């Protein structure tokens, strides 16, 4: 490794693997290392099952859990929006060819101690049990406006008098359609996927775009707007690492990182064991630079192994349930996600549910109780409380570009925004998708 590279990437979490792929594709000479023996860091899917039990200090799982190699358990629960940024990145980089996805079967929202299907178009809204008849009509009118909305077409703004996407707040739009609190609640949290209510007093254009992303994603595959990769989310970093390797990136796992070497305030290399690899830039996750990040919050996540689906979801083999903050007197939403043996992440007949939220109190596990209560009997539960770190600076000074910890959102939109921002700060350019498409096309014979 005593060589000179343009960039050294530390950690093989999803963000670092995407960045590594983009840098290699752009012609940079990349060395990508991880202190672990496996790919994925925090975004790995743990296999076999005994490794998960060991990680949490438990004895090996009993035989009822089936073949332990059939399990691939995510540590961070997320789904892909079918029309979202990550799918765009996957398609344009050709990484989709290494992956297979299934559409998540249902998307539900919690209201008054029970769960209901999230209506996302006019037809579903009219049959929804979330609203009374008059409210349904008002909601339908609102959805028509949201679906027709175009940022750059004032003609599509007319339905709301005086509307413009920047100066009109979302609460003004809700008021125009006379929507009640419950409808606003599930629109903001289950369709626009906000975690708190700050959006209400911000420009309406952003919220309307998020509602459109939800309904456009839903339109792609039908049952829900979400996709999930077979064998677990840990396949995603591996796919992007392969992209990086195909474009010349060098991979080394199981490499202890001893020091990031700086001269005159700028990075010049990375020392591992007795060797130092030279480089002009370092890209890494917060765990490699504990003194260059600050803690900005915590996320609590419970991984629950079940031998049954969740009640009232029509026995869905995969689903998402959002518990809006107000329903349970909180400031941030609770997310429940469920995947199963049909995604090759569990042994036959088994399900994996994840309950997560942003921590607000000194007793994080108690905060996710409303989500846990929806699951029914849980065979085994693993609870983690993870700090959320942000970099202290944007990296342009010392050329060390640090990603943010994975947040509590249920999908990858913020993950992609962070990646694109890091790429822009590191290279001074927006990522040029056309570079990959052309070259990869030649591979198909």
């Amino acid at each position, binding site marked *: 490794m005593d060589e000179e590279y343009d960039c050294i990437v530390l950690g093989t979490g999803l963000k670092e693997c995407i960045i590594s792929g983009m840098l290699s594709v752009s012609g940079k000479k990349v060395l990508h290392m991880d202190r672990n023996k*496996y*790919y994925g860091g925090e975004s790995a899917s743990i*296999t076999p099952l005994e490794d998960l039990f060991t990680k949490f200090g438990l004895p090996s799982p009993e035989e009822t859990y089936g073949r332990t190699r059939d399990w691939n358990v995510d540590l961070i629960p997320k789904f892909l929006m079918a*029309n979202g940024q990550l*799918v*765009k990145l*996957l*398609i*344009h980089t*050709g990484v*989709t*060819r*290494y*992956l*297979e*996805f*299934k*559409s998540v079967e249902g998307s539900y929202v919690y209201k008054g101690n029970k769960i209901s299907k999230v209506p996302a178009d006019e037809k579903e809204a009219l049959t929804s049990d979330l609203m009374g008849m008059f409210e349904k009509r008002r909601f339908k009118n609102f959805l028509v406006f949201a679906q027709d909305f175009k940022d750059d077409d004032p003609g599509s703004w007319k339905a709301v008098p005086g509307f413009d996407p920047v100066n009109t707040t979302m609460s003004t739009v809700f008021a125009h359609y006379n929507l009640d609190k419950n409808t606003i609640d599930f629109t903001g949290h289950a369709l626009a996927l906000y975690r708190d209510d700050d959006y209400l007093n911000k420009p309406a254009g952003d919220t309307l775009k998020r509602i459109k992303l939800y309904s456009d994603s839903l339109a792609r*595959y039908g049952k829900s707007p979400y*996709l999930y990769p*077979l*064998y677990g989310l840990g*396949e995603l970093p*591996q*796919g992007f*690492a*392969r992209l990086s*390797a*195909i*474009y*010349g990136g*060098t*991979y*080394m*796992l*199981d490499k202890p990182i001893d020091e990031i070497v700086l001269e005159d305030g700028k990075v010049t290399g990375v020392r591992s064991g007795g060797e130092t690899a030279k480089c002009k830039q370092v890209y890494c996750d917060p765990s490699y630079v504990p003194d260059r990040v600050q803690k900005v919050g915590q996320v609590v996540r419970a991984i629950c192994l079940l031998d049954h689906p969740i009640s009232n979801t029509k026995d869905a083999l995969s689903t998402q349930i959002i518990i809006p903050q107000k329903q349970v007197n909180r400031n941030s939403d609770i997310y429940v996600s469920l995947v199963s043996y049909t995604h090759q992440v569990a042994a036959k007949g088994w399900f994996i549910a994840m309950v997560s939220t942003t921590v607000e109190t000194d007793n994080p596990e108690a905060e996710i109780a409303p989500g846990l209560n929806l699951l029914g009997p849980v065979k085994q539960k693993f609870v983690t409380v993870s700090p959320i770190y942000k970099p202290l600076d944007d990296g342009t000074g010392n050329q060390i570009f640090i990603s943010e910890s994975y947040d509590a959102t249920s999908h990858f939109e913020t993950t992609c925004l962070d990646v694109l921002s890091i790429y822009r700060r590191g290279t001074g350019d927006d990522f040029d998708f056309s570079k990959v*498409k052309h*070259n*990869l*096309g*030649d*591979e*198909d*014979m």
Partner: protein
Amino acid sequence: MAQRGGAQRPSGGGQGKICQFKLVLLGESAVGKSSLVLRFVKGQFHEYQESTIGAAFLTQTVCLDDTTVKFEIWDTAGQERYHSLAPMYYRGAQAAIVVYDITNQDTFGRAKTWVKELQRQASPNIVIALAGNKADLANKRMVEYEEAQTYAEENSLLFMETSAKTAMNVNDIFLAIAKKLPKSDNNARSCWMLQVITFKTGETM
């Protein structure tokens, strides 16, 4: 569901079914993994083939009597160099070619390690072929044919010595694999992945 790859080569009568299989290549760096694929897929050979960059996913079809076997061939993209091959690589592979260089005893030892790794990690029904490559360099031979053949028999592997340079046994080894692969509907990838969504590269959003 989008079809992967592009080639369409009709089999003789047009009545036969098409089965698609994932085939992975394994072996020490510089034993000729990419060269074997290049010879098989494009009929080419480059004396100074660079370390694999840029193309690590090729497709080629082999026609048997009533079946067209389409290989989706995965090259390591160099990730084997520092023992950093991702589990994704083996995942769902129905066939593997483990390559060594007959002029280098170490690469044969390494090939045996890869076979063990496949028996541990890959699906139990995987068809494994052992290829002793660079057979054109027989005057520098360090691995005896009989030694490799005995090892292959003990481990139920297909075995051939090959030369990507002269094309010796290259098509034959792929054909032998194609014949040994189970062609029932349950096993063919294209048949059981019905509900699964794959994307075409460059699909517009």
